[in-house]
């Protein structure tokens, strides 16, 4: 392992592979480049878009922000709220499943599978009626609670996988010192699980930020309108202003890019851990 990062004598450089990889990158990321390209070209008409944004300008972004700023703020509040709800539920559950010696491995795989199996539209179908009865339709709280469901199974699996590796003795030592289970959990387990919590939180944020289904179905007025819903209505209403649409798209894609930069090494582990374990 330690030799891996170093250029070991004898390891071929394989410049050809690197070139091929970059070619793949160019092809697969072209749609996202094109999004940025259109967003940066001012006064983009229906006619030809140039291949490069040689005369880049920010007016598309200004128009996008002035009309979509409120929705971006809504998305931010909802996604952060969903992270808080999700982690508050997932962390203790994951800890209990990991440390209390519950024979839970199979049950968790099964439960996670069930949650994967239930289509969002089925949840929305039933949830809408319940929300009407509870007065949660068109409320930020209602959307936060629904969006937390997008990250919860994943977070439990991820956190449990991490917390299994915390030696039981660390917590037991604290218990001997007079702390109760809960205090030990907050003071010792949570700080030790920091990286796993950050990863679960980032993913939950992204899931909630990307949510479209609950935003679409659990809101009937314009009171709570996250950016995904707003974009959906936007392309229905005036598709002529592609510059502003693409500028909005760029801004909506920013959290994904940040996630990739901040947590590059956790992202791949997160995808794999959440689905294979």
């Amino acid at each position, binding site marked *: 392992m330690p030799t891996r990062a170093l250029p070991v004598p004898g*390891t071929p*450089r*394989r*410049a050809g*592979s*690197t070139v091929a*990889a970059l070619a*793949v*990158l160019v092809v*697969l*990321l072209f*749609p*996202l480049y094109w*999004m940025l390209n*259109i967003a940066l070209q001012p006064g983009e008409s229906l006619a030809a878009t140039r291949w490069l944004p040689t005369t880049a300008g920010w007016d598309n972004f200004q128009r996008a922000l002035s009309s979509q700023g409120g929705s971006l703020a809504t998305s931010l509040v909802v996604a952060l709220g969903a992270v808080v709800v999700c982690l508050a*539920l997932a962390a*203790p*559950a994951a800890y209990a*499943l990991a440390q*209390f010696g519950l024979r839970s491995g199979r049950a968790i795989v099964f439960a996670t*599978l069930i949650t*994967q*199996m*239930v*289509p969002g*539209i*089925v949840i929305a*179908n*039933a*949830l*809408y*009626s*319940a929300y*009407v009865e509870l007065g949660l339709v068109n409320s930020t709280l209602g959307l936060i*609670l*629904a969006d937390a*469901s997008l990250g*919860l199974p994943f977070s439990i699996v991820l956190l449990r996988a991490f917390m299994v590796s915390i030696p*039981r*003795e*660390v917590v037991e030592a604290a218990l001997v010192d007079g702390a109760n*289970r809960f205090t030990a959990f907050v003071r010792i387990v949570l700080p*030790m699980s920091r990286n796993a919590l950050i990863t679960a939180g980032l993913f939950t944020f*992204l899931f909630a930020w*990307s949510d*479209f289904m609950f935003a679409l179905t659990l809101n009937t007025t314009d009171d709570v309108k996250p950016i*995904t819903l707003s974009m959906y209505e936007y392309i229905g209403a005036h598709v002529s202003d*592609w510059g502003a649409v*693409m500028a909005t798209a760029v801004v*909506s*894609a920013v959290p*994904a*890019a940040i*996630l*990739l930069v901040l947590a590059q090494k956790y*992202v*791949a582990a997160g*995808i794999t851990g959440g*689905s*294979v374990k």
Partner: protein
Amino acid sequence: MTTTVTTSVTAPTGRPRPAGVPRERRRATLLRWCFVAPAALYMLAFFGYPLVRNILMSFQHYSPRTYFTGEAPFNGLDNWRGVFDNPLFAQSLWHTLVFTFGSLLGQFVLGLALAVFFSRRFRLSGFVRAVLLLPWLVPMVVSAVVWRKLLDQETGVLNTLLMDLHLTSSAIPWLSSPNVALFAAILVNVWIGIPFNMVILYGGLQEIPRDLYEAAALDGAGAWRTFRSLTLPLLRPVVTVVLILGFMSTVKILDLILALTGGGPADSTQTLGTLTYQLSFQQLDFGQGAVVGNVLVLVSAVFAVLYLRANRSDFGQGK
């Protein structure tokens, strides 16, 4: 963090725990439940309840009036009959299967090819692999909107490219022709799903011991032979996981299709997901919507059972 761990592992791990007095043990059990209960209750409310409620709803008559009067009387099998008599249902089921299997085929083949490719060590490999995740991380609605522009018949860059390269003589009506739209939706979904397949399959490839490859090379096996007789069989458990998870997440897709085509043109991209949405939230017939939703759950459940069986044989006894 590391220091805590290293000092503590010196304690024997298999130490029998003191068997406390019954009262204490009951308290411990109660405490366990306090940790698990919030998440368990939440899961019941947001996953269990909708499943049960949908079954009930499929036997109830919902109409636009329901939400004023609060009345949804039971109506036997009327909703089920209504849905099965609707020609759109069979069409949607067919589109769903074509969309799902088409997407899986494209995602898996390209994802596997990239995973194998990136298993070779070369410069920038890690960086490129990470950046390739972006399409999967971007909100699906955003991807759909971007592709709507790319696939636009007159102003889309894809048609411009194809015509400049003389691969097609006239602009392809990607999203406006009923014959092409479903294919276009599959194309976009393949693009979205490649990173997911690539990452998981790449992880699986890393688990295969390197000396097996060395042994194969010593035996004179070529690249294709090694891939077919060594890599694929050893990768099988991971392949199963990828395909079944991929199936379950693809079969229910709604965001992408609503934002890309809205189920059109002429219902040519209508799937079980979009049909549920249309029946429930546009026609306010939540009863019929629930019927289609239940069918969707059923289709997924069949595959979940297949998954569990495959899982048992792959990770179970002795293997």
